[in-house]
């Protein structure tokens, strides 16, 4: 399908009337030569009068073609490939769901009978086969990929569980229409009765408030999750006797060696920003993929090592996780204090704390309503899914060839022309 960058230039096609007008003006009053005698011309074959009408328009047509091509060139033509392909139907099966139940098998068979391609809802969309479920799969991201891979107007039949954990990011708007057939959630490894988590908070006197906000957050986690937490607040010097599997060190000084040892032994150690060189910061905190409403007020300029869990809006890590031995180090490059971030007074705080307390792999699947999971469908006339072919240079070539042909025809017609 031919696309034009600036179709307004097509108004230039009106210039085609120009050679036409010249042609008719110059032809009607055909040149009159007054001569003494036309006796010798009377014997000329009468057919010649017809040939002059036949020969002229060809040249004129050629010249008009050149004009039209130039106008077309100005309009910036490009060839969109998307409409050439006809829509297809893909049945996308979430990996791991094929193993269960004859109902799904029968459904896939009937879809295949209507011409649908059965593919796995996984990176690369391989043909259906038995694959283990990928707990980290993001269905929405995968559906965006699938939408890009198929011609517009295609139909995607998704056979996947409606699991909130796998619908991350913003709900996509696709060019393809999507039918979501919910399947039962894949079996999660049975959540063993959450063991009691022993949390120890060491807080310097200057950071007493930080400890209070953290305590409040942890209490909220305990209320919401029903997780069993035993939280103790300890003075800084009591590190020797502590035994806990989640330790918060809220002090400007670095964590002592004893706590590092505990972290290496399987505990999680959270440290706060120690740097007094904090700068004013703006924007909000971003948790992994979703932007929160929590504002960031201050942060030190340097960045902590490890994989980021929270970042600021510029993408600089705020909270990083790093594996240390069998445990983890969590480094917070801000403070749990309202003057540093208002996260501590927002409802996101306990949710995030819960994620920090429990590794994400053990997160239970949260069912989502179908109306919330299914992506939107964009109207058919969307932007091109593939870059269009630029017709600039081919058109130039055609114009040059046409001009050459015109010159040849024009000069060839008048061999005796001076």
């Amino acid at each position, binding site marked *: 399908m031919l696309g034009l960058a600036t179709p307004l230039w097509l108004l230039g096609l009106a210039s085609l009337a120009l050679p036409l007008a010249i042609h008719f003006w110059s032809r009607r009053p055909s040149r009159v030569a007054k001569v*003494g005698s036309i006796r010798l011309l009377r014997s*000329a074959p009468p057919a010649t*009068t017809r040939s002059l009408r036949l020969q002229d328009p060809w040249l004129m047509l050629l010249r008009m073609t050149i004009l039209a091509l130039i106008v077309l060139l100005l309009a910036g033509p490009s060839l969109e490939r998307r409409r050439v392909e006809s829509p297809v139907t893909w049945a996308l099966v979430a990996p791991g769901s094929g193993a269960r139940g004859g109902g799904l098998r029968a459904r896939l068979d009937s879809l295949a009978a209507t011409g649908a391609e059965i593919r796995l809802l996984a990176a690369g969309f391989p043909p259906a086969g038995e694959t283990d479920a990928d707990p980290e799969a993001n269905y929405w991201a995968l559906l965006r990929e699938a939408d890009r891979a198929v011609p517009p107007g295609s139909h995607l039949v998704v056979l996947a569980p409606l699991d909130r954990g796998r619908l991350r990011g913003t709900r996509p708007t696709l060019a393809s229409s999507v039918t979501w057939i919910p399947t039962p959630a894949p079996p999660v490894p049975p959540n063993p009765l959450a063991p009691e988590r022993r949390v120890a908070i060491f807080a310097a006197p200057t950071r007493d408030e930080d400890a209070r906000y953290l305590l409040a957050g942890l209490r909220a986690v305990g209320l919401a999750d029903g997780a069993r937490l035993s939280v103790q607040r300890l003075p800084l010097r009591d590190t020797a006797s502590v035994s806990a599997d989640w330790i918060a060190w809220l002090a400007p000084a670095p964590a002592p060696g004893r706590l590092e040892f505990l972290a290496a032994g399987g505990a999680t150690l959270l440290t706060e920003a120690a740097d007094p060189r904090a700068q004013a910061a703006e924007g909000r905190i971003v948790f992994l993929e979703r932007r929160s409403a929590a504002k960031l007020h201050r942060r030190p300029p340097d960045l902590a090592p490890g994989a980021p869990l929270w970042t600021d809006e510029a993408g600089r890590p705020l909270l990083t996780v790093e594996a240390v031995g069998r445990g983890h180090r969590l480094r917070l490059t801000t403070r749990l204090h309202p003057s540093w971030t208002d996260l501590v007074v927002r409802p996101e705080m306990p949710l995030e704390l819960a994620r920090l307390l429990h590794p994400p792999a053990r997160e239970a699947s949260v069912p989502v309503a179908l109306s919330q999971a299914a992506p939107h469908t964009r109207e058919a006339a969307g932007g091109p899914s593939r870059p269009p072919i630029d017709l600039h240079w081919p058109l130039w070539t055609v114009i040059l060839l046409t001009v050459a042909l015109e010159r040849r025809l024009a000069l060839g017609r008048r061999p005796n022309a001076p």
Partner: protein
Amino acid sequence: MTYAAPQSFDPRILTALRNLPLAARTAVDGFMFGVHPSRIPGPGGGLEFSQYRSYQPGDDLRHIDWKLFGRSDRYFVRQSEIETSVTVRLVVDASASMSAEDDGLSLFDYARLLAAALALLAHRQGDAVGLTAVAGDTIRSLPPRRHQQDLQRLFYTLEQVTPAGAWPPWQRLEAHLASGVRGLTVVISDLHERGDEIRAAAARLAALRHEVLVLHVTTRREAEFDYTGPVVFEELETGHRIEVDAEAVRDEYLRGLDRAWRDLSRAIQEIPAAYHRFRADEPLAEALRGFLQQRARSSRER
């Protein structure tokens, strides 16, 4: 015979003078430089003695000088310089077809200049020059005269004539041409006839024992037919039109023209009359030389 600078013959420049006598004089002066006088020795009853020569059998007995025979007892023939002047009539075709233009110069302009140059040339040779301009039914005629005023009148008449109409039948011309003394009659025409009226007139004149010289004037475009594209050709005398593709018919036209001119030339020479063809973009010298040769022949034969 020597020539002056060639541009003095260029008809285009000469007609640009817009002064016919001056243009004619320029053309003739350029041409005439070094021409021998018009008097040639010959037998006959001229007044001015030239020489004696011994009698040859066949000489006219009337030319024998009897007094000399009485003195010397031998036959001598008395030779004298004869008057070689002839009567020259210029017949200029001023029919509408002569108004055909060629690069801004009309055929009649050229014919007019040619006639004026010939008149001046003849006048300087001591000939009596007459003019008959044939513009359709309007025929202006000046009887052959020898005087300077007559020449000026001839120039004036030539300037007044505008091409119109078609060549009239002989009956209309007879009164103007058949009268008076015989001599050299120069017909200047493009020879575009409907039938053969111009050739017929030339034949009549030849039959009246005129020495006839036909100067056929043509335009460059007529001879070369360098038109391009579709052209409507309009016949000047009749107004008939024909639309042709010039390139397509050129070869055919040129072949036909070549044939027509050859036929014309043969027909005129059979009259008998002398025939010369000129193109309006050519210098006048050739035309003047043809005229002089013919004049010499006609004066010798007299």
